[in-house]
């Protein structure tokens, strides 16, 4: 489909799409090995990379990461930075699931400590964290007024309600709260969708896993992150801003469509709709987006709280005894105002990360004080039943990818094809034969999310490591999977 797009090989892992179209303001850069690149050429990934290069004010190049695949407007696994004053902000560069992201929690337990109680613990989590179609909580609902406070104050607000430990907020990107959140910029429809969904996992590719550390690659950094030995049990939570964020994206795509006409912006794709950074439309979107970002941080915080509660229920001991410390919480779908060096000059830019993880290096003021000597933790979840990765951000990422790296495995097979080939019950059985406990709300999702439907996340981590935009720290493998 995008086979006609010209590509120049720069290294084994770096490819350049020249400015072959008159509307392209910058070239494209693709970080991938030959296999991943071949896969990208079977759908519209590279075409979308080219389209993003048309955005007004875009700097250096439109970036596609090793897990890149076809999205809406932007490819998923895409990064673009535009000038703060002269550039644009595009909701398509963030996506529908604003701040879809990942949280990693470290325990002080080893696999052998948890194995006898694994099924019971997984059942408790499955019960305490609603997931699947239309999942909502009965025990924790907020009114619209409370929702406004929650999205303004983020993770700290729920910690103050007793759903967390005081040190949790420090280990979140943005300390769990973007300060510019303004609920007046959020529609009633979005709020109505949001009030019942705090503390729920959702459906599709979202999951919660009990994992063990399978291999440590960088001992010093792992130790700084609280990962001390192979076999150590960790928890990974992968979800986003639920219907609240989806509706905000949808609402602002409409606003941006009007803005495209008003400001006469020429775009190759309707879903790249955007507004000039200095416009009212951009300011409104950024304030509403921040509400969804905070909603998602809060969502993962409350889920972690109910995971800790599940440990208490099952082991009948205080959860602090098991460690259960938050390693980090990082966004995969977000736009941020950041400072980056562009051609030797420091520039204030809008960084769009659509299916991309921030990967800041050691010493960066935006990362938690206790990690500043090593760098920011980068979390790359795999697909169901495969490994997940902990990496660390680097200076190289600041140089070549606006401080970003990959975010996941990326699909390789369509949901329709996966459903034809697999049956949920078989997938569950296969996982259980490997000793993995599975609790899923939907058998269809199990089939659609079957492991062979995804690219190999290990290869994605390899490319990130070899390019140097985030380097390997540790690999985790699942012991139990809770799935929507």
């Amino acid at each position, binding site marked *: 489909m995008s086979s006609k797009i010209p590509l120049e090989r720069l290294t084994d892992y770096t490819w350049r799409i020249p400015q072959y179209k008159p509307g392209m303001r910058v070239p494209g850069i693709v970080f991938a090995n030959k296999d991943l690149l071949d896969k990208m050429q079977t759908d519209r990934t590279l075409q979308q990379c080219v389209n993003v290069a048309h955005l007004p004010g875009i700097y250096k190049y439109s970036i596609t990461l090793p897990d890149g695949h076809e999205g809406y407007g932007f490819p998923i696994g895409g990064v673009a930075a535009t000038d703060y004053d002269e550039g644009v902000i595009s909701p398509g560069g963030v996506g529908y699931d604003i701040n879809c992201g990942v949280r990693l929690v470290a325990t002080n337990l080893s696999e052998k400590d948890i194995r006898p109680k694994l099924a019971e613990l997984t059942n408790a989590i499955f019960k305490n964290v609603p997931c699947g179609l239309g999942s909502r909580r009965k025990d924790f609902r907020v009114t619209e007024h409370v929702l406004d406070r929650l999205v303004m104050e983020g993770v700290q607000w729920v910690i103050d309600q007793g759903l967390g430990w005081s040190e949790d907020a420090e280990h979140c990107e943005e300390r769990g709260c973007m300060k510019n959140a303004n609920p007046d910029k959020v529609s009633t429809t979005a709020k109505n969708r949001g009030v019942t969904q705090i503390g729920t996992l*959702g459906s599709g590719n979202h999951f919660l896993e009990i994992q063990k550390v399978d291999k440590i690659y960088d001992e010093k950094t792992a130790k700084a992150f609280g990962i001390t030995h192979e076999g150590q049990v960790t928890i990974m939570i992968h979800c986003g801003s639920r219907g609240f964020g*989806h509706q905000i994206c949808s609402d602002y795509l409409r606003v941006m469509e009007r803005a495209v006409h008003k400001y006469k912006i020429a775009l190759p794709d309707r879903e790249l709709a955007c507004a000039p950074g200095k416009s009212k439309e951009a300011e409104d979107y950024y304030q509403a987006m921040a509400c969804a970002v905070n909603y998602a941080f809060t969502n993962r915080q409350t889920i972690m709280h109910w995971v800790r509660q599940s440990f208490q229920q099952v082991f009948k001991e205080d959860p602090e005894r098991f460690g259960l410390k938050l390693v980090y919480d990082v966004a995969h779908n977000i736009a941020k105002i950041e400072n980056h060096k562009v051609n030797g000059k420091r520039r204030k830019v809008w960084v769009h990360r659509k299916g991309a993880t921030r990967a800041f290096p050691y010493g960066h003021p935006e990362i938690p004080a206790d990690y500043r000597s090593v760098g920011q933790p980068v979390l790359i979840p795999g697909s169901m039943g495969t490994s997940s990765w902990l990496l660390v951000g680097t200076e190289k990422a600041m140089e070549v990818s606006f401080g970003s790296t990959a975010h996941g495995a990326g699909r390789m*097979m369509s949901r329709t094809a996966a459903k034809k080939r697999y049956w949920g019950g078989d997938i569950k059985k296969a996982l259980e034969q490997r000793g993995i406990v599975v609790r899923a709300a939907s058998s269809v999702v199990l089939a659609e999310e079957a492991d062979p439907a995804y690219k190999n996340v290990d290869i994605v981590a390899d490319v990130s490591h070899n390019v140097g935009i985030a380097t390997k720290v540790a690999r985790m493998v699942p012991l139990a999977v809770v799935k929507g």
Partner: protein
Amino acid sequence: MGEEKKFEFLEHMADAYVAAYGKDLAEAFENAALAMFDVMTKVEDITPKTEDYLEVKGKDEYALLYNWLEALLVKFETEEMLYSKFQVQEISRSPKGFALKARIWGEKYDPQKHVQKVGVKAVTYHRMEIIRKPEKITLKFILDI
């Protein structure tokens, strides 16, 4: 039964790619809605016992389709309603754009009765098409899941 297919799912890497058919735009919109609920659950199991009414607007037919599906998705998320019967009564055009009026029938979501497939996050404009042929309209669109 010899009945023509109301909708089908096409190949798409990450999400649900739907083709919905109808003899006119109204019927195609009805079948598009049916397809969306079929992504979430088995539509045969949704009893059309509660009636409701929807009005949506859009500046063009694409926006109208997007807004129609989104309005139904919002109904599910905020009122927990699933629908299986749709009657688009009117699609009108004015200088301001398009408007649609529809009666819809369904029931409250009951996880015991309605099998869970996959949740829909959002409707998208990506690859959205309205293809007109004599006596047949095809709508194509992608649902983000």
